[in-house]
Structure formats: structure tokens, C-alpha cells
């Protein structure tokens, strides 16, 4: 579905990605884990076209997308849910969702969009309950759900989730992760970025571990959980066990 090959990305003089390669198969949740500054968000922003790689390529179903504009990439079915939600806080929940369908406003009529709103509200019942409320009055977790739901309104083939559990109450974390899984089970392809490696590895199928702009390890979730270095650095457990 998605193939990223040796992308290098600069922020001015700083090289944020030093040649990152990974792939995502259809219907799979792939997580990118790593510490702050490892380059996780940079990768998502590059895939969605907000950043341009200086070299390397990104292929969506075998065709290159790394030279397209973000709008074109969204139309091809890549939707990003940005870090920190960024919902339109003064608009109602429902209007936020309808805005999510903006990229396909020309292809879809209103009834279709209404149907999709119903669909995502089924996925996130809380959003239906609060559909008239201003989005800014929702809790952090609810806003996150709204942000994901809004991304879904573009009918993406692949969903890029940037830290969906950041600053969210534990009970909502579980709820969000459950929903991500449900989306995958429905055939959605997901790239999930998390600092909370525990959370990410509990729902993902495979993962890549990033360090200072490079991939240092890849594997199935089971393999990553078995890796002592991952345990030490990202899961914060067995620290003593490993190094004493």
C-alpha cells in the first residue's frame, strides 16, 4: 500500500530524517515508535505532503506521491490526524465532521456526506451525543475522537495518526485504541505514531523503532516487545534487569 524509501528531510540546516524506509500493507496497523525528536511526526508530515523530502521516494500503491501537494495526496486517500487534535473549536462537532468531507465536496452529494456522518457517529457514539456542542468544549479525549472522525470523513484509504493518545485520560486512551483496532478490522490501513510505546504496541501489527532520524529496528509487535533495547528505552521496564 505505502512504501517509503530512504527519505531524507531537512529543517533548515538540520537533517531530521537521515534515510528512512518503511512500508505499510493494506489493512495493517503499523506503528512508528521513538523518543521525542526521533523524527516520527516529520515522517507523517512528509507522507502527507506537508514536508518535502530532499531525497528518497514515497509510493502509494506503486505510484510516487512525494512531489504532490498535500491536497492532491489527501485526494489519493491519505488522511492525517494531526498531533494535538486541532479541531475547529468554535464550530459544532457536527460541522467539524462535515468540514472533514471538504476534499470530496465536488464528488459527493449531501446525502452521501450525511450518511458518512452517521457512520462515524456510530463509531464514536459520544460525538453523536454532543453533535451540537462547540468542539472546544469537549474533553481532550473527545476532541481526539473528533479529530479522527473528521479525518475519516475524507474516506481515506490510509489513516495517519499522530499521537492520538497524547494528553488523553487513561480511560479514553483505551477507547481510542479500541476504535483504531475497529477501523483496521474494517479494512482501514493505519500508520500510528506514539510516544506511548505501550499503547502503540498493544494495537499495532508491526512496528519500526526510530532513533535520531533513522530506523534502528523493525519487527512484529511480539518481536519488538521481546527486544531488550525496546523494553529499556521505550517501555521503561526491566531497566534494572538489563543494565543493573
Amino acid at each position, binding site marked *: 500500500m505505502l*512504501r517509503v*524509501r*530512504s527519505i531524507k528531510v531537512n529543517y533548515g540546516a538540520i537533517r531530521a530524517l*537521515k*534515510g*528512512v*524506509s*518503511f*512500508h505499510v500493507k493494506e489493512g495493517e496497523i503499523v506503528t512508528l515508535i521513538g523518543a521525542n525528536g526521533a523524527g516520527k511526526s516529520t515522517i507523517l508530515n512528509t507522507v502527507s505532503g506537508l514536508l518535502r523530502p530532499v*531525497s*528518497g521516494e514515497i509510493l502509494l500503491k506503486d505510484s510516487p506521491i512525494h512531489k504532490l501537494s498535500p491536497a492532491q495526496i489527501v485526494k489519493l486517500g491519505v488522511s492525517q490526524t494531526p498531533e494535538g487534535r486541532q479541531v475547529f473549536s468554535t464550530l459544532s462537532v457536527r460541522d467539524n465532521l462535515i468540514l472533514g468531507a471538504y476534499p470530496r465536496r465536488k464528488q459527493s452529494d449531501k446525502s452521501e456526506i450525511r450518511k458518512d456522518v452517521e457512520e462515524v457517529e456510530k463509531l464514536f457514539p459520544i460525538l453523536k451525543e454532543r453533535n451540537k456542542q462547540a468542539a472546544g468544549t469537549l474533553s481532550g479525549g473527545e476532541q481526539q475522537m473528533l479529530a479522527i472522525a473528521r479525518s475519516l470523513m475524507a474516506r481515506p484509504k490510509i489513516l495517519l495518526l499522530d499521537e492520538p493518545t497524547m494528553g488523553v485520560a487513561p480511560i479514553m486512551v483505551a477507547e481510542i485504541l479500541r476504535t483504531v483496532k475497529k477501523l483496521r478490522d474494517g479494512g482501514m490501513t493505519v500508520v500510528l505514531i506514539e510516544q506511548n510505546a505501550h499503547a502503540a504496541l498493544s494495537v499495532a501489527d508491526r512496528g*519500526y523503532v526510530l*532513533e535520531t532520524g*533513522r*530506523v*534502528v*529496528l*523493525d*519487527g512484529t509487535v511480539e*518481536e519488538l516487545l*521481546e*527486544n*531488550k*533495547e525496546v523494553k529499556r528505552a521505550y517501555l521503561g521496564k526491566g531497566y534494572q534487569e*538489563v*543494565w543493573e
Partner: protein
Amino acid sequence: MLIRNQELETLSRSDIRQLQLERLQAIVFRCYKNVSFYKKKFDEAKISPDDIQSLDDLKKLPFTTKADLRDSYPYGMFAVPLREIVRIHSSSGATGLPTVVGYTGNDLKNWCDLCARIMYAAGVTRDDVVQIAFDYGIFTGAFGLHQGAERIGASVIPTSVGHTERQVKIIQDYKTTVLACTPSYALTIAEKMSEMGIDPKSLNLKVGLIGAEPWSEAIRGEIETKLSIKAMDNYGLSEILGPGLAGECEARNGLHIQEDHFIVEVIDPETFEVLPVGAEGELVFTTLTKEGFPLLRYRTGDLSRIDDSPCACGRTLARMSRVFHRTDDVIVVRGVNISPSQVEAILRKPDGNLPEYQIIVDTKDANDALEVLVEVSEDLFVDEMRQLRELHLNLEKKVHAALGVKVKVRLVEPRSIPTKDGKVKRVVDLRRGDSQ
């Protein structure tokens, strides 16, 4: 068609290359970060891990040789602290310091899976009774196939090597269906069987997993007839993984290399140039997933050629041709590596002169036999017989002690060893069809 990992063994070539690139970049970085040997080599060659932007860039990296492994004896090239290592294997060390390899939990799991893959490809299923007649010990062979068979769900009998009569009894009574051993031991077992008056056709044996020594197609035919089995080849090196690196499928048209875990290159052993697909040369492997003991561009010394065209079995994994020759003169006799230089060290006289000699390997009485011809100078021949006999016994003892294999030494007259272009051929391996 028997494919154990349907997804990974039938990836499209472009998917394989994508996976290999991802893993190559990661392991190169891990090697640079965690193995001082590689950091030094990279720095010397002015290479950064970030220079690997495509699979083609692999050839920028330095080679790793057996000598490098010896220099870092025992743990110098481990990429993780020793406490993360859960298994240690090593080579025999007959030719100097042994090479020591360590496996993490994930390494063992991968090894197990890969052995299961090649065994499944050879026809082993959960209904089989697998007799492992490889030496259980510090070597990788027995343990690799043992755990692979268990992963498949077969019933494993760890008989180890030796006690041939008991082996035959077990084959007969326990209804063994799969026999794993060296080619020479397979023939030993066959011989014992006929001695005991047992007809192989009356047994349940169906498949042989034969390896650890080079064996010709003629030997394969002999094993198959005498044991009434299908003899399947597999390939592995303890430095890289042990068995599980590559194995034959039912098409028997080369050994499938587990390319999701390894990158294979074929190089010209003289110029070190990477050769195109299909050309014969030295096999060079890069491990892609190993955590404990990763190796970049490890030179195996084994000669083979690669074919990456689709196989009749459905696998897309490239195939290597069976290995019959090595780049150096190292010969494998009963699982032990022997190099002419070891023999040379013994024959060299105190004055530094080296008599002409030749090593002849043959299969005698179903076992590999080693003979060393040594030319003795004329003055020695005219001397007393007693002195000559002493020299003879002495040499035999010394060579045996150094090689760890029984050797017959024959003293011959000067210039009696045939030469070619004025040079004596140091090794004549009759098993692979060399002429004397």
C-alpha cells in the same frame, strides 16, 4: 506445494527488495552503533550508515571475514550485552581460535522459524518422526534442525551421532520417517543396515535432511537408493545462523535463500567485485534481522551461483546452486574444516623447507578418508628402515592431533606426485570428482 510461510516466502521481488532495504538500513546503523569492529571499519573507510540509500549501496561496505571473527574472539562482535544472549554456539576451533556466536531470544525464534521453513520445504510435516543424527553439542546443526522440527510439530528423536547399530534399531522400531545427518553418516547407516540384513524399503524412512559437508549428486543417488529416501540438501554456516539459511524445495532446483532475513551477494573472490545474478562466485551474506551477532557482507568462501527467477514450487525467494567447491583449499571431512596450511605447518622442516605434499580425500567404506602423500628426499630413503618408519608414525600422529581427524600418511619418492603446470595440486577431493 508445501510452503510454510505463505506470505513471506512468496513476496514479490519488489516487496522483498523493499523489506531488505528497510532492514539493511536498520542493521547497518545498529552495527555501527553497537559493534566497535564495524564502527572502526566504517570510519576507516569513511562510510556513514546514512550512505546506505539503496540495496546497491551495500557494496560500499567493507567485507567481514572469518579472520575478523577470530580477532574478536570470543565476544568482540556481539551487538548486545552478554546478558541478552540466551544461547551460545561455536565452531570446533580445529583450525585455530573458534568463532563464537550468540543468539538473543528473537534470534532463536527466527532461527527456529527458518529451520521449520526449510524442513517443511523438504517435506517434513507434523506427522513425521524426525531422527536428528547430528552431533548435539556446541555445533549448530543438531539444535537448529531439532527446534525446526519441533516448531513444525513433528516428533523429534535426538539420537545425536554414533552408535550406528542403535540408530538403525531406532529407525526401525520408532518408525523414523525423516533422518537428519551428514552425507557420510547417511552412508554409514546404510551400510550398517545392510550388515544387519534390513531392507530399507521395509522401513518408514522417506526424507533425508543431509548437510554439513559437500556431497555430489552421485552421493545423493547412492544415499537415496541405499536408504530408500529422498535426500534433500540444505545450507547454513554457524557464523551466520546455522542451518535454516537456505534449503531445497521439492523442485530440487537450487536452495531457496531466506531473503527476508539475509541478503546474498556473489563476488569474484580475486577482485571482490560483485558479480551479476547467475554468475558463479563466492557467496557473501549480510544478516538483516540478527540482534546478537549481526554480520555485514560475510565472506563464506563457498562457491555458488544465484538464480532469482520464479521457482516451480511457487516461492519467490532466490535460489543458490548447491555448493561443491570453496574459494580456498579448505576441505570438509566429517564435518571438520581442514586447510592445507595446517598440514604445511607440520611438514615444514626446521630449516624452513617444505617437502612436496598432496592431500587426498575419498569416501572409503562409506566414510570420508583422508590421505596425505609426502615426498621424502632421497637421502632419507637410503637410510635405515627404522628411521623411516618412525618418521612415518610421527607424522601421522602429528597430523591427526592437529586436524582432529584420522589421517593416513604415505611417504613417496621425490617427484612422484603428479604436477600440473609445474605445480602440485594440494588438495584432491575425489568425492567431488577431482582427478588424481
